[in-house]
């Protein structure tokens, strides 16, 4: 009975992942080929593509998408490997995870806005720079001129150090994307490295490497990375596709004439003139091609690196640019810490500032006015966000857990399970801008007014894969002999699941739930499109507010966006702790560390895993 329920769940999960994506692709393909009955276009042709490629900027848009996407992914992968190589054996690793994890749950839109604030020509870095140069010139003049002129705070020369934003080659977008991708790549890699079997193998490899005289960094690149790379390849490709087609970051930080292709698609789709939909649809198809080209380029770069790596393996060099990699690792971490501090300071200061004029380092007077305004304006978006998040995350979690359970009760054949894991990545490997519009088109055909349902589906498409990845790690870590013992004690599969697995995996389940919440909170495009703009959430409001009047109000929105997922993770962390305390301070069987999600407040459970198998 229970086995059947889990099988049904597995099929539901598959449908939730594949149907919207495939339907969405069909839904853009038809208009792209000139078939759009709503505006009287009934004939298939390739005219729309001809129109698209006749646009003066279209090639530049594609190049921009390709450059920012591929560049940012390569940079992020390289930096991630630097950090991992420098720290994978260090006790600082846990702390680094702690620094990077908040970035993972920080929505893209919020990250982009925060960077905009910090790096803008009136941002904190420019202010500090101007201050410093001001003081230097002051000291300099002081040295030679006896009569000291008073420095007028507002009359300092404006700095030119902020050219990083809106630059026409998209360098700012590239950097912002890398900053956001790097934590994901690191945490994915760590979660692979922490799988029991892999962990054991890697430990042996590193020991052998050390015995043969290889430095830790050389061991990482020559032994660890080749062993685990195949397992992190798919997530990296997902990151790459995401980066080539992301909307929020180029929209907020990128160049406007032309913008990246994804941003242009969004503008065309939202154009008042419905015939622009045809153009947008064809551009969406082209976007799929651009992402595919990015993937192919990445794979060929990977080939070349692999070939060179093989050659360097047999050379037997015991070092691998150790100093450079260690330095890079430290530098990147330092960059993150500086940025995080600057962002927190700027956001909090702005959110309570009465007035904050450029070169001043502190705002001029404090007020709670913006918070009051924001809270009254955000009441209903907040409720929407929370309801949607709870609904999506909870159902996604149930589906995912039952699916994982069904895999253990009734393992699929190797072939089927390959297809399954590919379909899991399908929504992450197909650009969102490409299929979401088509999905909306279908949804309007089916239930026109079911706004919540449509938004729910659009969110599920993105939440389920992450919740699955996070839970799958915990499931793989779970010692299945516990289940065997329980079964041999006469317990039904349901009893084993309910009495043994659920309590043992409770921590991990809560973390996956919080991750689902965070992913749902951060969705911009899916919310905007599926609801047709009728379901404002914190994220859509925040992005909208960038174009609005008050930077201080925007700061409040960003803080809210950052706090919401953190609250989720706090709950996820504290509930198990309280549950434990009630039972008399026992430790859980499986820890939830190094899940994909890696909750930011994890400190305690680390010690617990050791108590299990050690014997006196």
């Amino acid at each position, binding site marked *: 009975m229970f086995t059947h329920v889990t099988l049904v769940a597995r099929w539901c999960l598959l449908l939730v992942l594949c149907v919207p994506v495939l339907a969405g692709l069909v839904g853009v393909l038809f208009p792209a080929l000139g078939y759009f009955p709503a505006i009287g276009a009934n004939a298939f042709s390739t005219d729309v593509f001809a129109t698209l490629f006749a646009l003066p900027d279209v090639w530049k848009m594609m190049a921009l998408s390709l450059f920012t996407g591929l560049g940012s992914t390569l940079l992020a992968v390289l930096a991630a490997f630097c950090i991992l190589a420098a720290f994978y054996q260090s006790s600082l690793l846990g702390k680094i995870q702690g620094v990077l994890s908040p970035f993972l749950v920080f929505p893209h839109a919020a990250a982009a806005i925060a960077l905009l604030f910090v790096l803008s020509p009136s941002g904190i870095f420019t202010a500090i720079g101007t201050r410093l140069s001001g003081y230097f010139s002051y000291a300099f003049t002081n040295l030679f001129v006896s009569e000291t002129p008073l420095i007028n705070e507002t009359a300092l020369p404006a700095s030119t150090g902020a050219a990083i934003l809106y630059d026409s080659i998209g360098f700012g977008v590239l950097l912002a994307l890398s900053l956001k991708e790097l934590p994901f790549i690191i945490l994915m890699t760590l979660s692979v490295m922490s799988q029991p079997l892999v962990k054991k193998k890697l430990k042996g490899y590193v020991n052998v490497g050390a015995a043969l005289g290889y430095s830790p960094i050389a061991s990482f690149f020559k032994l660890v990375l080749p062993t685990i790379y195949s397992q992190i390849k798919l997530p990296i490709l997902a990151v790459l596709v995401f980066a080539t087609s992301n909307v929020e970051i180029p929209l907020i930080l990128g160049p406007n004439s032309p913008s990246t292709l994804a941003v242009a698609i969004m503008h065309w789709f939202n154009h008042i003139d419905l015939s622009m939909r045809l153009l947008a649809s064809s551009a969406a198809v082209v976007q799929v091609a651009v992402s595919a080209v990015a993937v192919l380029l990445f794979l060929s770069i990977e080939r070349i690196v692999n070939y060179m790596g093989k050659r360097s393996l047999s050379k037997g060099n015991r070092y691998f640019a150790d100093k450079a990699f260690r330095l890079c690792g430290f530098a990147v971490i330092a960059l993150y810490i500086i940025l995080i501090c600057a962002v927190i300071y700027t956001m909090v200061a702005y959110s309570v500032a009465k007035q904050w004029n450029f070169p001043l380092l502190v705002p001029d007077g404090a007020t709670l006015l913006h918070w009051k305004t924001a809270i009254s304006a955000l009441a209903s978006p907040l409720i929407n966000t929370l309801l949607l998040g709870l609904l999506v995350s909870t159902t996604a979690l149930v589906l995912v857990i039952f699916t994982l359970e069904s895999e253990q009760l009734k*393992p699929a*054949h190797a072939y089927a399970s390959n297809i399954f894991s590919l379909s899991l990545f399908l929504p992450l490997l197909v650009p969102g801008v490409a299929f979401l519009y088509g999905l909306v088109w279908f949804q309007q055909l089916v239930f026109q007014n079911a706004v919540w349902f449509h938004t729910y589906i659009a969110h599920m498409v993105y939440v389920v894969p992450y919740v699955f990845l996070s839970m799958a790690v915990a499931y793989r870590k779970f*010692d299945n*002999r*516990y289940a*065997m*013992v*329980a*079964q*041999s*004690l*006469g*317990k*039904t*599969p349901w*009893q*084993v699941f309910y*009495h*043994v697995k659920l*309590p*043992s995996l*409770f921590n991990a389940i809560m973390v996956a739930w919080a991750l689902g919440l965070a992913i749902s909170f951060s969705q911009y495009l899916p919310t905007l499109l599926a609801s047709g703009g009728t379901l404002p959430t914190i994220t859509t409001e925040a992005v909208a507010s960038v174009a609005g009047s008050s930077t201080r109000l925007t700061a409040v929105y960003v803080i809210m966006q950052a706090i919401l997922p953190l609250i989720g993770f706090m709950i996820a962390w504290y509930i198990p702790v309280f549950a434990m305390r009630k*039972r*008399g*301070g*026992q*430790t*859980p*069987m499986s820890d939830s560390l190094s899940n994909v999600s890696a909750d930011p407040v994890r400190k305690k459970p680390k010690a617990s895993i050791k*108590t*299990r*198998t*050690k*014997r*006196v």
Partner: protein
Amino acid sequence: MLSLENIVIYHDERPLLQLSAEVAGGEVLTVMGPSGAGKSTLLQAIAGQLKAPFSIAGQIKINGVVINNIDAHLRKVGIMFQDALLFEHMTVGENIAFAMPADRHKNKQVKRDAINELLAAVDLDGIADRAVNTLSGGQQARVSLIRTLASQPEAVLLDEPFSQLDVALRGQIRSWTFSQLKARKIPAVVVTHDKDDALAAGGNIIELL
């Protein structure tokens, strides 16, 4: 009585091991052999927990009833591993209560008494309310044994059950385990690397190649 009649275990299509044996109540059959010979797989097959790519041919009978197609949780075959695998979200008493067949005891107090009686049999009186991870390795091993027996199995399988224990403890736990099985007339199969286990078991020995 546990009978294994013409058992063949396949890995995909390739036969991994073949054996036939009969284990009477209170007897212990020892299966020995190198790693990878399929010893643990054999136990999983008997317990009904064989997973692809493995499959089994032949008949497994308990007291003359073929159990090949019975679900694992209905077979009444207890299994024990080298780790005690006590459930850490339950106390010692709860672990044992979890194993006891439902509705066998009139009320909570009777059940508690039964648990304490079982614990007393292995010199662990009064630890029913302790958290599992406060126990020593030897204590955990004994609770694990008691837990298996509490489920009133009709056969017990032991997968290298003593290999994690240090030498001083091993002999004691071993004789405890075998004498409890003997006293309850439960047929058992033990899989091991350790010649001493085989000798202490005192039953037939099958050596896999």
